[in-house]
Each structure stands twice: as structure tokens, then as C-alpha cells.
């Protein structure tokens, strides 16, 4: 990883490091040269690590008190809320923590979209990140089922039923997923098992995500390649650690605001009614962070088509590095792409909004327009804009913000001349 050899000062340290180079790793992590112009949008990696660890620690404690059984789960959650010392705090941190985790991951993803962090040579970081995001959605969905409230039960029913849309084997797959002929106790126990497993898979992927990041180093708001180490970089510690700590504290204030003063505002009141297979709620809605995908799912009149589009909306992101044809990374120098970036944000927010509304009338129209635009953005707009856009001159280095243009961006310059 790091080019310069690290030699521990003490004899014991050297002895240990020769056998397991943990001290070299620690030295690499503290000295890791980081662009000095990283803004606060770059602090969400650290915030997300905090979120993951918070979920794991609170989750381990909750699992000590929770009972994964269809007849006992709801009561065991109330037991946690009432009888376990600070059980309410641990559970509210865990349930709101999921929302905060997604809030942070969406900011992290859109930061990558704005500054072109997914582009060469960082495609693998981006793809590992998407795998983490997929696992997060699976973990969050299964976690929401565990309290065995009405939304838990009916959300699980709707989502698992999606697999029945697969031709020929769909029904068998759904039965296999349930472990029964409907969502029932076997479904709950396996969801609990998987819900406990997935965070550790995520943790493993996070290590790979950071490892892959440390090969090319961080992208930065200007989006240019920089020499490392140089006057454009600072050592990770203390410069980035203190900045990450400050941003994390601000994030924790918002987090605490939800936990202590509005712990149920992000949840659905129906989930405080015990699951009842005989009573369907008036509107079945997922948690807010899945709403845009839910809107895409419901915008298609055909079930299989809806399922394909919903999963397609995520999987299209895997090929994003190859759909974006622009050589310039940062949207700061891409006046046209910048506009489309904001339109995409509005599009996703509108999809999220209509996802929470009944699928009828104006909402259905909006969902369809939003879905079409979402795919249009990635399949048509990104490749075309990359070719046609007249990008602004890119600086040579961070320390030298004079707009001089660069040999590295001769392609972009040629494009400029064409237009």
C-alpha cells in the first residue's frame, strides 16, 4: 500500500511489525495523503462508518432481549421499551439510526455523482459502494419486519411477493423465501438471522471500499489527479480526522434530535399495531428511504415489468462509470451536467414523494414521468452530454486555482473547440 517503508522505533514494535505489519498499516492510515481542498460533503464516509458501528453495537444489545417468534416478537419489543434499562434509548437509536444511515449514504452517493468520484480510476470503489448500498437495503427491510407490527408484516408480504412475478419458478421461489405458504413465523426467524448477518458482510465490504480508495486516493472537489504527497495534500491525521470529527458531531446533533424529541416521526404509526394477517392496512408504504424505488415499482402496470424496472434502477448505477462519457470529473467544470444533476435530485425527491402517496390520479402520472426521466438521465443524457458539453477550463493543481487548462484534459479542450 504505502510506498515509504515504516520502521517502528522500539525493538518490540519492530519484532511485532515484522510478523504482522499492523503498525505499518496504522502508519499508512495516519499519513495517508489527502487532498487539502476536501469540503464537508467528503465527511460522510466517516459518518457512515459511525452509523454502521452504531447499528451493530445497538443491534447486538437488542438481540439479547428480542424474541424472534411471531407470537412473541411484538411483546418483546414492548419489553425492551419498558423493562430493559435504557431499552427505549437503544431501540430508538437503532430504528432512527437506520434512517440516519440512509440519509448519510444518499448524500455520499450524490456527492460522488456531482464530483464524478465514480469515474476512472475509481470504478471498483463505486461498485463496492453500490454492493454495500444493496446490502443496506436488504438489512433495513428485514430489520423493519422484526417488530412484527402491521407494516412489518404487510411490507414483507408485498416485497416477497415481488419474486412471484418471475415466470415459471416465481411462486416456488416465494414459498422458499417464506419457508411457509405465507409470511409467517419461519419468515420472521430467517429474516432475523439474515438481519444479524448482513451488517458483518457490509463491514467486510467497507474494508474493501476503503482499501480500494487508498490505491488511487481521494477524488476532490476540483476533480483533478494530484501528486501525492505534495503541497496539494495533507496527512489524514490530524487534518481530516478533526474535520470528520467536527462534521460527525453536527450529524450526531441531528441524530439526537430525532432520537430524543421525535423518535417515531420517521416510522409509520401502524407498526405499533401487532401484525394481523386478517387485516390489511389502508396504505402499505415502505420506509422513506425506499420510497423512490417503490414509486418506480408501482408506476408500471405490469408486475414483472415493475420489478424489472425497480431493480434496473439500482443496477443501472453499476455501469454508470461507463455511461458517463465526459473526461472531466467534477461538475464544477461541467455547466450542462450540473443542471441535469439538480434535475435528477428533484426527480428522485418527487419519486420519493409519490411513493408515499396512493398510486392513482396525478401521483401515478408523476411516478411515470419521474421513472422515465430517471432512466433517461442515465441512458441518454449522461452519454450525450459527455460528448457535447463545452466544459470549463480545469486548473492544473489545487494550490494553483488559476484556470489554465491542462494537457490531461486535451480531450475536453478538443470538445470545446468542436462546439
Amino acid at each position, binding site marked *: 500500500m504505502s510506498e515509504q517503508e515504516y520502521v517502528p522505533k522500539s525493538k518490540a514494535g519492530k519484532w511485532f511489525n515484522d510478523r504482522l505489519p499492523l503498525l505499518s498499516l496504522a502508519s499508512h492510515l495516519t499519513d495517508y495523503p489527502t487532498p487539502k481542498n476536501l469540503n464537508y460533503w467528503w465527511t460522510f464516509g466517516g459518518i457512515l462508518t459511525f452509523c454502521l458501528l452504531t447499528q451493530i453495537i445497538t443491534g447486538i444489545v437488542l438481540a439479547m432481549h428480542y424474541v424472534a417468534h411471531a407470537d412473541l416478537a411484538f411483546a418483546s419489543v414492548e419489553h425492551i421499551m*419498558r423493562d430493559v434499562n435504557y431499552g427505549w434509548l437503544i431501540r430508538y437509536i437503532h430504528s432512527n439510526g437506520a434512517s440516519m444511515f440512509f440519509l448519510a449514504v444518499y448524500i455520499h452517493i450524490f456527492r460522488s455523482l456531482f464530483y464524478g468520484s465514480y469515474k476512472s480510476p475509481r470504478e471498483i470503489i463505486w461498485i463496492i459502494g453500490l454492493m454495500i448500498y444493496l446490502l443496506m437495503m436488504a438489512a433495513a427491510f428485514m430489520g423493519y419486519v422484526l417488530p412484527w407490527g402491521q407494516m412489518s408484516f404487510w411490507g414483507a408480504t408485498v416485497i416477497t411477493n415481488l419474486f412471484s412475478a418471475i415466470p415459471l419458478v416465481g411462486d416456488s421461489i416465494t414459498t422458499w423465501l417464506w419457508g411457509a405458504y405465507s409470511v409467517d413465523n419461519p419468515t420472521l426467524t430467517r429474516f432475523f438471522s439474515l438481519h444479524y448477518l448482513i451488517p458483518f458482510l457490509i463491514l467486510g465490504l467497507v474494508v474493501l471500499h476503503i482499501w480500494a480508495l487508498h490505491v488511487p486516493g481521494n477524488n476532490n472537489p476540483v476533480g483533478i489527479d494530484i501528486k501525492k504527497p505534495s503541497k496539494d495534500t495533507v496527512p489524514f491525521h490530524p487534518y481530516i480526522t478533526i*474535520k470528520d470529527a467536527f462534521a460527525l458531531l453536527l450529524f450526531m446533533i441531528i441524530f439526537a434530535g430525532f432520537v430524543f424529541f421525535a423518535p417515531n416521526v420517521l416510522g409509520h*404509526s401502524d407498526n405499533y399495531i401487532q401484525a394481523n394477517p386478517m387485516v390489511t392496512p389502508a396504505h402499505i408504504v415502505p420506509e422513506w428511504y425506499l420510497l423512490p424505488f417503490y414509486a418506480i415499482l408501482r408506476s408500471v402496470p405490469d408486475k414483472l415489468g415493475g420489478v424489472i424496472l425497480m431493480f434496473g434502477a439500482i443496477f443501472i448505477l453499476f455501469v454508470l462509470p461507463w455511461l458517463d462519457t465526459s473526461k472531466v470529473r467534477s461538475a464544477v467544470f461541467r455547466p450542462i451536467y450540473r443542471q441535469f444533476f439538480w434535475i435528477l435530485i428533484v426527480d428522485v425527491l418527487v419519486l420519493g414523494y409519490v411513493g408515499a402517496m396512493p398510486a392513482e390520479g396525478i401521483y401515478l402520472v408523476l411516478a411515470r414521468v419521474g421513472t422515465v426521466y430517471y432512466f433517461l438521465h442515465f441512458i441518454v443524457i449522461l452519454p450525450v452530454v459527455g460528448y457535447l458539453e463545452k466544459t470549463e477550463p480545469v486548473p492544473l493543481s489545487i494550490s494553483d486555482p488559476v484556470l489554465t487548462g491542462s494537457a490531461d484534459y486535451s480531450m475536453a479542450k478538443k470538445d470545446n473547440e468542436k462546439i
Partner: protein
Amino acid sequence: MKKFKIFFYILLSLSIFNTIKSAEQIDPIKVDWSFKGLLGKFDRASLQRGYQVYNEVCASCHSMQYLSYRNLGEPGGPEFSEEEVKAIAAGFEVTDGPDAQGEMFTRPGRPSDKFVSPYPNVNAAAAANGGAYPPDMSVLVKARKGGANYIYSVLVGYEDPPPGVILDEGVYYNKYMIGNKIKMPNNLSDGLVEYADGTEATVDQMAKDVTTFLSWAAEPELESRHKTGVKVILYLVLLSILVFLSMKRIWSRVNPEE
């Protein structure tokens, strides 16, 4: 900035559309509850009166299976004295067992017992109430959109059905209930209970008291949550300021002009 403006216009127009659409449903009455807000606390006397209303009126049909009698004496709740809690618990017959002979038996309740339910199970409760199960009220306030305001509104929302609305036997008209039809009769009438503290037992007073009690039952941690929350946020704000100053100091080596 322009993009944000456009976005907000879109959201605004959507929300206006939304309010027009749901105009048929009456919004619950907004009550200025003492337990709302960052430093909200329950009104102790109201909680005690509310328990009395629950016990004398609601408890004949509605269970509260997740509460224990000891909760009535815990800090942040009605805070009955230890003797009062023991006396309340002892007033209930609790089925216990099996004993050494394998027989179930009844004994007077203890503070550690859960609230005794009026019916042995959900089916029995539904059968005794015209097919409608009177919901368990332990977390009822959290389980309804609108929370305390909604529960209070339903309790005071009974009126004669408007012309053209025909109700079946055992169904009542309530302007705040979703769908306006409710199987629970209007059980509150002025002077129904005699409050120990001399408060006049109007329908409005009883509805407010019992709703306060139910809000506490759903969130018994509310007061300590609010208190802890204020401390946590103060601590985080102070720490943020210190870390911010340290950060400025450290980064001044890189950006001396800042």
C-alpha cells in the same frame, strides 16, 4: 438556488393538491398538551385522574397488557405512592399457577403483575363487543396517526349522524373517527366519575385526562427521554464548539490566511 426554488414550488403545489384531496376527513382537534415540546412533562394530577377514568370506564373492555401495576408508581408516570400501587394491584384477581398440585389458582394482584385483561383472549373480546375487538391500549397513542390529539378528538367527537347516513345496530357516528363509524358507544357523560381531587368530571376533562394517561402508557420514558435529550444535545454542541476551534487551529498551518 434557482433549482431549489423550482423544487419547492413543485412540493408546495403537490401539498396543496394533497390537502384539497383529503378535505373530507376532519383534522383532529389540536390540544396544547403539557407533554409536547422539548421540555414537555406529564401533568401528574391529570395522569392520576386519567388512570381513574381508564380503570372505571375503559378497562371493562380495553386491555393494557404491556403495563404492570408497578409502572403506576414509577418516576415520570402517575407516581402513585408505594402503598397506593400495592392497594391498586391488590384490587385485582390474578390467575397464577400451577401450584404444587398442578392447579391454577387466583390471588390478589401484586405491583409486579401485568394489568389484568378484561377478556381471556382477542376472540372473546371481539365476541363480547359485536365482532369488533376493543384494541389493547398500551401503545394506542403511538399506533394512531395524530396520536393524542386523535384519541382525544374521537372521545369528544360523537354526534348524531348527518341526514342520509344510516347506521347499523351497535354502530355510532363519530366525526373524527376514520370512516366516521365506530363500534364503541359514547361512554363518557358529565359527572360519570367522581374525581378524588375534586376536579369537575366534565366529558372534556375526562377525555383529556384519559388521553394524557394513555400517552404516558404508550411512552412511559417520555420525561426521562426529554431530560436526557436536552443534556445530550447541550453536550454535543459544546463539544462541537471545542472541536471546531481545534480544527481551525490545526488547519491554520495549511491555510495561514484563514
